[in-house]
């Protein structure tokens, strides 16, 4: 079963992975990506990161990405959680967990989902640094990562 959550509260990494992996004894592999807040970006200290999103569209965009992953690979469950609001260094930002019978599909689908999320889901990061606030620019590396999956 797939589940998407966009929330300001912290999430329980273990509970999410356990719920996913225990759904079926036919699951052999769970691959998890956890993105967390770094205290430095482009050489500058970052004290707070604030995540803004587009309520309503965010969930639809994530659902579309999960649907495409389900079409491409034989998966047994996906869980995506994304934080919004203010975050501190070491706070988890996003979790993508994918269950499958075998590991190859789980690895590919997990990387596909985070690559697409980074270029297609309406989230924006604003950083607070000692020099003031700044919006994070989209990374060219994320566009390239997404383009690998085009077909």
């Amino acid at each position, binding site marked *: 079963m797939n589940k998407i959550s966009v929330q300001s509260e912290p999430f329980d990494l273990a509970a999410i992975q356990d719920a996913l992996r225990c759904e079926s004894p036919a699951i052999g592999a769970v691959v998890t990506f956890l993105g967390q807040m770094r205290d430095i970006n482009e050489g500058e200290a970052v004290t707070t990161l604030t995540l803004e999103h587009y309520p309503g*569209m965010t969930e639809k965009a994530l659902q579309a990405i999960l649907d495409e992953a389900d079409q491409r690979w034989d998966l047994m469950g996906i869980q995506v959680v994304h934080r919004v609001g203010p975050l501190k260094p070491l706070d988890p930002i996003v979790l993508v967990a994918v269950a499958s019978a075998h590991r190859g599909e789980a690895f590919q689908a997990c990387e596909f989902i985070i690559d697409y999320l980074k270029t297609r889901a309406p989230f924006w990061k604003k950083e607070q640094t000692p020099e003031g606030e700044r919006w994070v620019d989209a990374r060219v590396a994320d566009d390239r990562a997404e383009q690998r999956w085009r077909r």
Partner: protein
Amino acid sequence: MINLLYFARLREELDCADEALEYTPELGTVADLVAVLRARGGSWSEVFDEGETVMVAVNQEMGGIDSPLADGDEVAFFPPVTGG
């Protein structure tokens, strides 16, 4: 009416989170709408300048400059996304 939403850097630069715009048949596509907004001048002409990268979603789906518009649509403008 067309419901307009602005996010992140655009919202701040335009000092506007959302607005309702009268729908007219001249608003055939997103390009027509952008021309109207750009004509407001000031920060509007800067944000919607041809050289700027602005993303658009029509009814909560990613769109483009050629996406058709209809009365009642929700149109959102925002910078390239940076989540994850």
